[in-house]
């Protein structure tokens, strides 16, 4: 991948120009779907855009005793990382990529979470610190399963290149890995039942408590981009390989949309779990499947 291609992927497709409207659309779909399933009317179609524009026009109140530059830096870093992760997704049939881009994707997907943890502790708010601590514990809980699932998929297909993974026919082991990733997504996107770090009713949105105005708008945007990147990763791994460009885009959006609906249903159907229950769920129930997947992948690798 040369510099021009990389820039085009980061800025145009599937990067910022495509990902930002898609992020707002997915945020709207999630809010609307949850509202309709709860018997509410839900927000209008343009609400995420209105929210973003409104927040951009607001001032950030002065925060005494807090490093302002750090507080400004975290949401920007999160947006950049999430946009970069979306830019790496091999949506188009021959989109390039490089050996090991899957590892970079995982790192970029993890960066917004690390930024949230850092932002909560930087804010010196008690609610922010509690939220960050919860985010850190949650991150440790689901990431073991998430990483094992990704590694098992990569090991079963003998490549860490995303485009190669997207082109190879899906094996049963890959479906097991995709299922494990799907189980981790609610925690990654802070959805019920794993919405502990941003529990509005308990800790006033946790790390976001001290944020307002354009900085909060950037956090919202990074959250939307995380939606696109995370659901897009599942769509990339689950979609059959097609050579027609428009069909590949359509398939990507449709599968991502389906994952958003699935996660919204789960969010509407469940209540928030306590942190110990969450950790127990990931380390006791889900880890078994991930270990099974990676051991099968390694066993298959040894045999072939």
């Amino acid at each position, binding site marked *: 991948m040369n510099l021009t291609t990389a820039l085009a992927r980061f800025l145009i497709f599937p990067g910022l120009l495509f990902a930002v409207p898609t992020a707002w659309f997915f945020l709207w779909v999630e809010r609307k779907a949850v509202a309709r399933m709860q018997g*509410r009317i839900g927000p209008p179609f343009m609400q995420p855009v209105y929210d973003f524009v409104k927040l951009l026009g607001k001032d950030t109140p002065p925060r005494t005793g807090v490093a302002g530059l750090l507080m400004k830096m975290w949401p920007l870093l999160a947006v950049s990382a999430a946009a970069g992760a979306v830019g790496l997704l091999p949506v188009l049939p021959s989109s390039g990529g490089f050996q090991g881009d899957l590892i970079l994707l995982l790192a970029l997907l993890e960066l917004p979470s690390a930024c949230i943890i850092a932002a909560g502790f930087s804010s010196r708010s008690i609610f922010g610190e509690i939220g960050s601590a919860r985010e850190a514990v949650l991150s440790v809980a689901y990431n073991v399963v998430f990483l094992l699932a990704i590694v098992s998929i990569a090991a079963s297909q003998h490549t860490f290149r995303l485009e190669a993974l997207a082109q190879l026919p899906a094996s049963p082991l890959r479906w097991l890995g995709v299922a494990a990733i799907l189980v981790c997504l609610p925690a990654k996107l802070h959805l019920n039942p794993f919405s502990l770090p941003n529990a509005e009713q308990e800790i006033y949105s946790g790390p976001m408590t001290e944020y307002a105005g354009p900085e909060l708008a950037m956090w919202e945007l990074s959250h939307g981009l995380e939606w696109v990147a995370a659901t897009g990763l599942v769509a990339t791994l689950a979609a059959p390989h097609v050579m027609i460009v428009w069909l590949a885009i359509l398939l990507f959006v449709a599968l991502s949309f389906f994952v958003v609906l699935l996660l919204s249903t789960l969010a*509407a*159907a469940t209540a928030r779990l306590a942190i110990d229950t969450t950790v127990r769920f990931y380390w006791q129930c889900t880890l078994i499947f991930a270990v099974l997947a990676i051991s099968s992948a390694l066993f298959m690798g040894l045999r072939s």
Partner: protein
Amino acid sequence: MNILTMLWQNLLGGSRTLLFPERPKVSKGYRGLVRFDPALCSGCAICKMRCTARAIDFKSGKGTFTWSYDPGQCTFCGRCVEGCKTHALSQDAECPPVYLTIGALKKSYTVARKPAPKPAAEVPPVSASQAADPVPGGAQ
């Protein structure tokens, strides 16, 4: 699986959100805005004493009194209505109306005090048997 059935029914049944100017149906015994009947009020101000939200104000003047009510502060607890001996207060059995300016629902009434009842002209005659017996529990 019950929750999924419920979600599915909600999805098919549409939203329960009411759009303006629709108003929700209320149950029997619903406590809405407090209504005041100046003709029945005796001006005792018990309602002001009972109102912990300070929605009711009472000002006494010369020969008149002013009774005011601010629904913006009212918690619709109904204690004023319960305490009104003359039944001058009652509560609507419907949701308060939508208003666009602060204090639009405030009400204030200036009522002339009713003349106090004159004391009885003469003590009714006491029978001989009642006068002979001391009142039980009375001062000896």
